[in-house]
């Protein structure tokens, strides 16, 4: 606030000439070039998406020229709309199913993992932590290839085969680091005092967990659930490598393989738009939920935004 005031004052005097005859330039002047650049970047990053969404309402068959508004590719077309093409709508449900399962499995595991890492000192947990963070940066393709071999060649696990279960297991392993990292960060900021106080007041370990720690961790757990859910919606590599047939192929893979196979069309844009909508709904719910849960704390909108994106 005060710095803006100063800036204003300075710019009011900015046309005073300096002794050397050069006009005095406000040292805190607004970087218009940077601002323009940023907006240009934002347009570049988002306008194509808007156009792709527009094409999903295209009347014609083209993905390149727009021929008027219609719902044809959502349900109008008898053959290739989302509503009538069984492949497209089964892909939609597959995505939802995978997201739900993965979130349900990965979040509790990740939370338990975070609690363990944070409270249990020693070589073993820190090496587990090491592996967990490593799994965060391993290229997804390499991880996917490894899983592919596990589920197709490894005795025992081969029985699972590639398909739904392999996808869920792979996605859980891939996404478990989100809740683990976020909840761990939250545990660090909470500190140990609450737990110790609860223990002093006679709580058992279980009561401390349920009545003290869990409420404190709820926003973090919620944020990570949102992240996992939307992460699975957008995931591509693992599900691409581990899906075996049309019944367990989610949306992202359908878009990829159909477009790559040369059969692209506005129906794919429609599918991608549904996916987009789904992600945004999840993000919106996440944002509102996070705001609701952290009511009374000093969390502003921007912090909530970064929390559900996992940048914090």
């Amino acid at each position, binding site marked *: 606030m005060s710095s803006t005031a100063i800036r204003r004052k300075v710019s009011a005097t900015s046309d005073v000439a300096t002794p050397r005859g050069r006009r005095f330039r406000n040292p805190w002047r607004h970087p218009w070039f940077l601002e323009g650049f940023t907006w240009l970047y934002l347009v570049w990053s988002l306008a194509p998406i808007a156009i792709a969404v527009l094409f999903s309402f295209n009347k014609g068959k083209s993905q390149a020229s727009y021929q008027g508004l219609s719902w044809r590719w959502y349900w109008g077309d008898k053959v290739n709309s989302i509503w009538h093409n069984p492949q497209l709508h089964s892909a939609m449900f597959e995505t939802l199913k995978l997201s739900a399962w993965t979130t349900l499995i990965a979040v509790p595991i990740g939370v338990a*993992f975070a609690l363990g890492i944070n409270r249990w000192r020693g070589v073993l947990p820190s090496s587990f932590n090491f592996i967990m963070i490593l*799994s965060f*940066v391993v290229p997804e393709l*390499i991880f996917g290839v490894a899983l592919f*071999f596990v589920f197709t060649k490894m005795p025992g696990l081969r029985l699972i085969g590639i398909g739904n279960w392999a996808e869920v297991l792979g996605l859980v392993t891939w996404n478990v680091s989100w809740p683990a990292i976020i909840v761990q960060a939250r545990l660090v900021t909470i500190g140990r005092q609450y737990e110790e106080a609860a223990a002093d007041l006679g709580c058992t370990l279980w009561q401390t967990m349920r009545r003290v720690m869990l409420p404190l961790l709820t926003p973090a757990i919620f944020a990570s659930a949102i992240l996992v859910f939307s992460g699975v919606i957008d995931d591509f590599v693992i599900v691409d490598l581990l899906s075996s047939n049309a019944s367990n192929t989610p*949306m*992202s893979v359908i878009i990829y393989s159909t477009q790559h196979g040369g059969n692209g069309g506005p129906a794919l*844009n429609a599918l991608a738009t549904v996916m*987009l909508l789904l992600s945004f709904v999840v993000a919106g719910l996440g944002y509102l939920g996070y705001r609701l849960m952290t009511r009374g704390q000093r969390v502003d909108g921007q912090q909530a935004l970064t929390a559900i994106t996992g940048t914090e």
Partner: protein
Amino acid sequence: MIWLVILFVVPFYAMLAIGEGKLDRQTESPVAVYLPWNWSSANLANVWRDLFGSGAFVGEIAWRTIWYVALASVISLLIAYPAAYFVARFAGRRKGICLLLLIAPFWISYMMRMLAWIDLLQTNGYINKALSFVGLGSPDWLGGHWYTVIFGLVYGYIPYLILVLYAGLDRIDPSLIEAGRDLGLGRATTFRRVTLPLSRQPILTGMLITVLPMLGDYYTNQLLSGAPNTSMIGNMIEGQLSTPSAGQGAILSLIVLVVLLVPMIYYVVQTNRAAQAAS
């Protein structure tokens, strides 16, 4: 709590260990060999020959991959840094909306974003219409060109970079920059002597976060070009998966993994250090 950890960590660890360990055991292609002393080095030798020997087509692909990824990440950095810097420092009241727009691509599926560009770059797409309107002809963007692939990589991974940079730059205390200016440094010098050293860490992390997945990328390439003359190491590995030479794909991805181990471990160490600094 501890038993929870054990219950979880063991399967998780087993899965990862198998996943990673499995690869080097996968030396003899369709049949897996589990005992280390029975390993054959045929596949390794094959891959080695393809990488470095005469007629080394994989070597060419590897170099191309490095070249593409390097170029794409440098371009990303050149675009991402100013934008992140602006939003972190100067956006003022518009910071909320800027942040929202910066984060938005993060919620949009990668496939959707590629699809959007496929639409635009088609021979009769809007980009070409605009170009021929100003008289620049209409190039065939999707016909397998290196620039389209690099463009796709930049577009695909820049949001991650920008978020990391933003988070890092936002933490820089503005009073440090003001102090630099007060002490008589000009804009450029302050930036070079104060801001840039302070943002070295976010830049490194951001680069890692974009470079590592780019190296394992095969879909961007496949969608925007699909031609063998632009294929990268990821295309190699993915292409071999369901063929009898899957073992070579395994070796190849193992090699990539080993090469990347150094930057990955660096990342983990950095993360741990940051976590310790926070606690």
